[in-house]
């Protein structure tokens, strides 16, 4: 591969020195003002883009593609083109937008708001169940996972809330270190369950997403049965583990910072929304995506990125860009700033963002209102963060009160 800069390529994903900050290579790349080369598992050297304006530019540029089967695409593994190659969110243009628009109705800003009362109930149910458990307990398992799993299963119209199949499949799918055969086996297991649900919905339609897919978009010829099942699987996977990690990290941040906790609870009606946006910005959990491939030559930050070269954007570094955010390293739950890129940017921006927002807004203040004494049950330096996952988070969060 021809190198067009002087610096040796850094292996990606780069390690974090501190669990509360993006890896230094990403923030240093941002500070340098130009993209820099990283090196992947297969020896390829995609560009790392880390400045806010540059990330936004790349993700909005139609000359930059999301197709994992494109030669030069910075794949997460050798299996990625085969496993994800058919998925709409890894496609561009006419292979992407029509499918996204089929899913959109269940994820609009207004539909997410309409779910708020039910999400508030899910939050209270999770807290009630926590009160019945012996302490200390793992907040990931008893709070962070059940709320988004419950919400996404109801939205889809499947009763899989207590199913380990869902959690296992989502967990393995985002673990970069998990063996491919385990990932594939877990996905097949989830697929079988969802296929059974889809057939059941053909007999007994309802007003939920899975029923709509199988009773409207399958007969119309827009989707095949296999696509329906894969979309349901995607919605479940993307819809619960991401939010679960945001919830557990959000709780951790508020446990660590009493001042911020007091601020949030002083006026939750005002600060629930700003707190949710600030947690999204501060943690920016998607740590190894978005990945893209240049379809034509383009210039980013004074650097020429050639057609066929891979690009990886660091949303976390972009979200701490001092050119955009005042005191970017500081957590401030009253920060009125929605310009963060935690959900990505461009036409692939997170489909479930409005639902995720409502879940964070409902869950974080409520937990501390109900359990004001909530605290860590282990020393902070014993917490295990998900460094090897596409989505950052905590393996477990032992708490007591």
């Amino acid at each position, binding site marked *: 591969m021809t190198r067009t800069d002087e610096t040796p390529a850094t292996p990606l994903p780069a390690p974090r020195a501190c669990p509360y900050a993006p890896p230094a290579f990403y923030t240093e790349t941002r500070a340098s003002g130009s993209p820099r080369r990283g090196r992947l598992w297969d020896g390829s050297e995609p560009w790392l883009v880390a400045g806010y304006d540059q990330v936004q530019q790349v*993700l*909005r540029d139609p000359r930059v593609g999301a197709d994992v089967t494109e030669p030069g695409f910075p794949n997460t593994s050798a299996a990625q083109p085969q496993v994800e190659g058919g998925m709409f969110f890894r496609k561009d243009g006419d292979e992407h*937008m029509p499918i*996204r*628009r*089929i899913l*959109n*109705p269940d*994820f*609009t*800003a*207004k539909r*997410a708001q309409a779910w708020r009362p039910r999400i508030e109930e899910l939050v209270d149910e999770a807290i009630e169940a926590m009160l019945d458990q012996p302490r200390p307990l793992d907040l990931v398992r008893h709070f962070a996972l059940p709320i988004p799993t419950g919400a996404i299963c109801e939205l889809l119209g499947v009763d899989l809330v207590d199913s380990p199949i869902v959690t296992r499949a989502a967990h393995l799918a985002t673990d970069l270190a998990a063996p491919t055969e385990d990932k594939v086996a877990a996905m097949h297991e989830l697929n079988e369950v969802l296929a059974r649900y889809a057939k059941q919905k053909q007999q007994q339609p309802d007003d939920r997403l899975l029923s709509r897919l199988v009773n409207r978009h399958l007969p119309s010829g827009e989707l095949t049965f296999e696509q329906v099942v894969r979309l349901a699987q995607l919605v479940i996977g993307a819809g619960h583990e991401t939010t679960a990690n945001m919830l557990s990290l959000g709780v951790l941040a508020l446990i660590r910072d009493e001042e911020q906790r007091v601020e949030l609870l002083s006026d939750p009606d005002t600060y629930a929304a700003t707190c949710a946006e600030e947690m999204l910005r501060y943690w920016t959990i998607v740590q190894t995506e978005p990945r893209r491939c240049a379809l034509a030559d383009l210039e980013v930050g004074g650097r020429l990125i050639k057609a066929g070269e891979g690009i990886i954007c660091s949303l976390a570094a972009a979200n701490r860009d001092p050119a955009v955010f005042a005191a970017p390293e500081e957590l401030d739950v009253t920060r009125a700033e*929605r*310009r963060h890129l935690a*959900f*990505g*940017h*461009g*036409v*692939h*921006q*997170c489909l479930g*963002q*409005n639902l995720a927002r409502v879940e964070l807004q409902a869950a974080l203040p409520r937990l501390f209102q109900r359990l004001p004494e909530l605290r860590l049950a282990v020393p902070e330096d014993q917490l295990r963060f998900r460094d090897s996952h596409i989505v950052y988070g905590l393996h477990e969060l032992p708490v007591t009160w």
Partner: protein
Amino acid sequence: MQVTIDEARCCGAGQCVLAAPEVFDQRAEDGVVVLLDATPPDGESAAVHEAVSLCPAAVIAVED
């Protein structure tokens, strides 16, 4: 101010609705942006400009 949208490229993220609900909505059937008010009053200016900057697909244009 004059607001125009490019429906064809809209991905339906809904950011404009959160920013300026008096000016933008989403179609129920596919989430695509609906322009409620193409010439919003001056009071909406800040909200509309926020919608422009947040729109992931850059499909909103404003002429002041």
